[in-house]
């Protein structure tokens, strides 16, 4: 089997418009969550989110692109540009024919749905823009990346709610490992911070009105974020032969289904996914130094995830570090695993563990080292990135230092 490495990374999210800005914010434990600036916010009971600030599409895209790119596609294109610039690859000939793009998103063009429903239902218009369908479709971002960079191999979009990005990156990993492709562009994107997007989430009553405080006894729910992170996954020999800078190795991946409840998480399902990823990577549990938690800040997720970690790691659970960066960038739903992979790369490459900020009170049901409030220096050789979706679909990636 081939080995798979990461040779490019890019992002835009509430913490910054690039990987450097995002990692700087994570090192400083800065919070990107604030008051939402969206239309009709006064009719929402949830008014905070990890919104991308200081972003104007006109600075990045021409008029025709804007008419085709929903906000989730715009974020994808910006993150992909950074990742592909870093990788420094040209896609031509046989290489282009085999290289593809697999992305994750839960909702796709939610802003486009929202704006156009508003137009026909609320404003009573009987006509919408001709590009509504190609703009809102979940695969729009993957297709535009494919077109822009001439990626002609296996390309598609994965939608598994909050695990979408991890499932997408797992597919890209499998394809390179199996020898189907030498290079895959992968990651995910989400942009649900609009009236309809938040209103739908309000209904479940799992959102916090004030902050995302994962693992803290006084946590009171999740906070949504938005943005994208995109990576270039490359076959190891291919990357080494061209002298590429290797950010980390993608060593293993596992996915499980709880087969139990549409919203409540399962300790067994989460544990099986983590154990599966470790075994797939050929690692022992004791080698994992850091876990980027799913850590949503809901009562149910955090205690279930900690119990699953205890099941998988036994006594080593007390030695490893586990943090949730959602406390800083919010929950990017289908894009979240991609942004969180950046914290994993930082841990392996820079020896800096991103903190769980907003941590105020220890919870006996989350009695692990959650790296509270301040980043920490630590050398780790292998890490996990957890994603556990509504619907009970779990996807965990294992990364190793390059």
């Amino acid at each position: 089997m081939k080995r798979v490495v990461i040779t490019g990374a890019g992002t835009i999210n509430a913490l910054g418009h690039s990987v450097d800005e995002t990692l700087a914010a994570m090192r400083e434990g800065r919070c990107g969550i604030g008051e939402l600036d969206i239309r009709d916010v006064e009719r929402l009971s949830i008014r905070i989110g990890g919104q991308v600030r200081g972003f104007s599409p006109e600075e990045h895209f021409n008029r025709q692109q804007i008419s085709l790119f929903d906000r989730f596609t715009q974020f994808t294109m910006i993150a992909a540009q950074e990742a592909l610039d870093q990788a420094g690859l040209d896609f031509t000939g046989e290489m282009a024919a085999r290289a593809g793009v697999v992305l994750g998103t839960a909702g796709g063009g939610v802003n486009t749905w929202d704006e156009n429903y508003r137009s026909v239902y609320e404003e009573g218009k009987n006509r919408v823009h001709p590009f509504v369908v190609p703009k809102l479709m979940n695969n729009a971002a993957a297709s535009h990346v494919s077109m822009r960079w001439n990626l002609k191999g296996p390309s598609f979009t994965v939608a598994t709610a909050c695990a979408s990005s991890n499932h997408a990156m797992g597919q890209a990993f499998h394809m390179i490992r199996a020898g189907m492709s030498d290079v895959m562009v992968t990651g995910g994107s989400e942009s649900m911070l609009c009236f309809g997007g938040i209103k739908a989430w309000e209904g479940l009553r799992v959102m916090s009105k004030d902050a995302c405080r994962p693992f803290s006894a006084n946590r009171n729910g999740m906070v949504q974020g938005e943005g994208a992170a995109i990576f270039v996954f490359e076959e190891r020999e291919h990357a080494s032969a061209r002298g590429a800078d290797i950010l980390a190795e993608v060593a293993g991946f596992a996915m499980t289904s709880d087969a139990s409840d549409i919203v409540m998480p399962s300790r067994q399902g989460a544990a099986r996914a983590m154990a599966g990823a470790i075994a797939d990577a050929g690692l022992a549990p004791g080698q994992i130094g850091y876990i980027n938690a799913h850590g949503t800040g809901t009562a149910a997720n955090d205690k279930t995830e900690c119990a699953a970690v205890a099941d998988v790691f036994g006594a080593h659970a007390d030695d490893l570090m586990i943090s949730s960066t959602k406390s800083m960038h919010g929950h990017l739903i289908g894009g979240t695993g991609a942004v969180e992979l950046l914290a994993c790369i930082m841990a392996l490459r820079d020896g800096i563990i991103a903190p769980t900020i907003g941590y105020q009170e220890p919870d006996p049901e989350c009695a692990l080292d959650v790296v509270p409030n301040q980043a920490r220096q630590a050398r780790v050789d292998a890490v996990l990135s957890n994603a556990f979706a509504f619907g009970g679909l779990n996807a965990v990636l294992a990364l190793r230092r390059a």
Partner: protein
Amino acid sequence: MAEDVQEKIFAIIAEQAVLEPADISMEQSLDELGIDSLGLVESIFAIEEAFDIDVPFNANEPGKSEFDVTTVASIVTAVEKLVAEQAA
């Protein structure tokens, strides 16, 4: 008014529990009635719609909510209070 509130709540809870309103009694908990967390959230939504009120309830901290969901009786009391407040 009070009886009307109770009657509507019994009907809502009975529907969630797949029982007849006559099978519901004030001292029962939702747990005893077989209503899980999703059923609770749906019941609260139905209550908001029936009485045109906003119910302050966060599933992450049910104990801290001003809206006490311990028993059928506590729900009736909480709804009566909200109806009175939000009509004022």
